């Protein structure tokens, strides 16, 4: 089985999943850039992780259905995201202790 061409890859069915993932990623990115609540930023970050996971699973399903590499990778990302969430929340707690607030814009000590 030869490698599928780009046009073959981007067939109509897979494209729907990719659009979904892209939309999720864009929402997450928008959330990160615009939200000032640190918890909201973390939540947006989770959205972006999941968008990536959808991509991985979708490519796995439509390009090489006989392997599971994309799915296993997605599971890894989920595990890592859980670990990342704990660290992120710990940071948020420390921010709260220092500023009595979780407004990310107020954490601006490291500047000129």
């Amino acid at each position: 089985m030869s490698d599928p061409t780009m046009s073959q890859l981007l067939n109509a069915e897979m494209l729907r999943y990719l659009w979904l993932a892209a939309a999720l990623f864009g929402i997450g990115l928008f959330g990160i850039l615009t939200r000032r609540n640190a918890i909201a930023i973390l939540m947006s970050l989770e959205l972006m992780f999941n968008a990536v996971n959808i991509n991985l699973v979708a490519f796995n399903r439509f390009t090489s259905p006989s392997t599971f590499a994309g799915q296993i990778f997605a599971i890894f990302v989920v595990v890592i995201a859980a670990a990342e969430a704990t660290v992120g929340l710990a940071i948020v707690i420390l921010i709260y202790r220092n500023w009595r607030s979780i407004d990310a814009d107020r954490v601006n000590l490291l500047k000129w």
Partner: protein
Amino acid sequence: MHETAHSFILDNAYWIALLPLISSAIILFFTRWREPLSAGISITAIVLGWVASIWVMIEVLINSHGGHFQYIERAFDIVSFETMHLQLGFVIDPVAAMMLIVVTTVSSCVQIYSLGYMHGDPRFSRYYAYLSLFTFSMLGLVLANNFFLIFIFWELVGLTSYLLIGFWFEKKSASDAGKKAFITTKVGDLGFLLGLMLMFAWIGTFDYDEVFAAVKSGQIETWKLTTIGICIFCGAVGKSAQFPLHVWLPDAMEGPTPVSALIHAATMVAAGVYLVAKAMPLYTASTTAAAVVAYIGLFTSFFAASIALVQNDIKRVLAFSTLSQLGYMIMALGLNGILSEHVEPGTGYAAGTFHLMTHAFFKALLFLGAGSVIHAVHTNDIQLMGGLYGKMKKTASTFFIACLAIAGIFPFAGFFSKDEIIVATMGHPVFQTVASLVAFMTAFYMFRLYFLTFTGEPRDEEKYHHAHESPNSMTYPLMFLAVLAFGAGWFGAPGVKGFSNYIFEYGGHAHTPSAHWSVIIISTVLALCGIGLAYLMYYKKSISPDTVVEKVKPIYTLLYNKYYIDELYDFILIQPTYRLGRFLWSFDANVVDGLVNLQATITYWLSDVKHWIDKNIVDGTVNGFGLFCDAASGAFRKMQSGRLAHYLLAVVFGMILIILLASSNLLNWTLAKVGL
């Protein structure tokens, strides 16, 4: 050498000199805080030396072998070169034996006397240490067996006299007098040193015997001997205070009075006369040098006697009297070198050394008596004394004996020795006239002193009221010396043999003093005239001293101011020296210091320039780099806003840029454009 006589005391005679040195060292190092013990050690040493000296004299007389004594010489080399040997040794000849007795006798009396006189002085022990050292120096000088060694002791005498004259150095006048004595005698010592150098250059040795053998052999030209003789005499002029270096002696009265006695009678000034006596063969070989010696002595004796006529300080009168008497001795020694058909050869030598001995005794007595008077009335001014006889019988009567001795009244000591000197002047009319005149003046000023001090009405009631006889420690030495002042002359009396005829012998001429009746009568009459005049002026007051003074006012003023010699020296020597010093100082301050300051100013100015360069150019460069970096970084640091959103936006745009580049071959296109 002349080694014939052997005896214990003659072989070990150097201990007479060493004992005072040892006692001095013990006092200085160990017993300074125990004053009676210090004095005891010092007196014990000198009295032992006195006993030993008498023993030496007896041995010398025993070994005289009918008028010709064999010298005793013991020496070892301290420095030895191929052609010369510097020796440390002693020689005993008749004059040395005589001087040993004189020095130890006077020194013993002075030390015992000082027990009372210096009682309670804060530096009592040190005083005794200095006295012992002084005595040691003089005894060493007496015993020295060569000219070099005598010079060493000569300088030691100078040093110790400086220490003792300036003993009360808290007084400015005393410390000045010490310096004056030291420096003035040093001028003469320079001549002595020069003489020694010439002696070594022309004769090649310092040893007495070798020098005199060379002189007698006639191989040395006379002008060389004359030069050496005059140079060595310069030393004697300084030490024996002859004109023109006499100025230190009157000032030396600032020292304690017993020290004056020691200096005047036995140690310091006697050294000069002794040196001339020792070097006598030089002067017999050179008539010119002998004439210089004789004329200086003659002039000094008259010059000093005339000053003594009018002085009012009891010690100064005695000081000028010493000058005059020393002039006598020097003159006699000088005349010994000038042959005269009127006197037998050696008379001058005998007279000089004989007078040295008798003078030592009565001059020590006079000074100690004066010290006793000063101790009682606390002033030196005879115009404030008077009538002290009643209060101080012992002092006054011993002083009277000394006055008779120095005036030359039969049978006191001075009579014999002074007549001997006048005999030695026979054949030289000028000398004889002046010497006789000096005898008259001596009698006058001594009895002026006596009458003003001890007789008449007290001129200062308060001082008279407090006056008292001195303690026994002071009066006993006076009495002992009075005996010698009375009797010492008999040893050299005409017709007395066994002592004088070879103690004072010179050059193998066994000297037999003979009575010259003309001299005896003239000098006695002159002395009695002097005493009589003093009696009329100061005791009877039948001639008023004031009217005499009025008649010869200019001469009186001249004499009272000591011929203005001190002022003359001040004008021609001291002031120019000061002026030269000030000139050199101003040269130093202006020129030398100016150069140094100029260099400093230039350095200072240069450093200002360098400071400017360093501050503006070097530092400017370094600061310029700093400022540039600061300004450049100012633009970029604004990027660090501290806002999370900004950073993330940058990440996003960066990401987009990379994706665009990667997906549109823009990168490849760009790389191709730049030629890669």
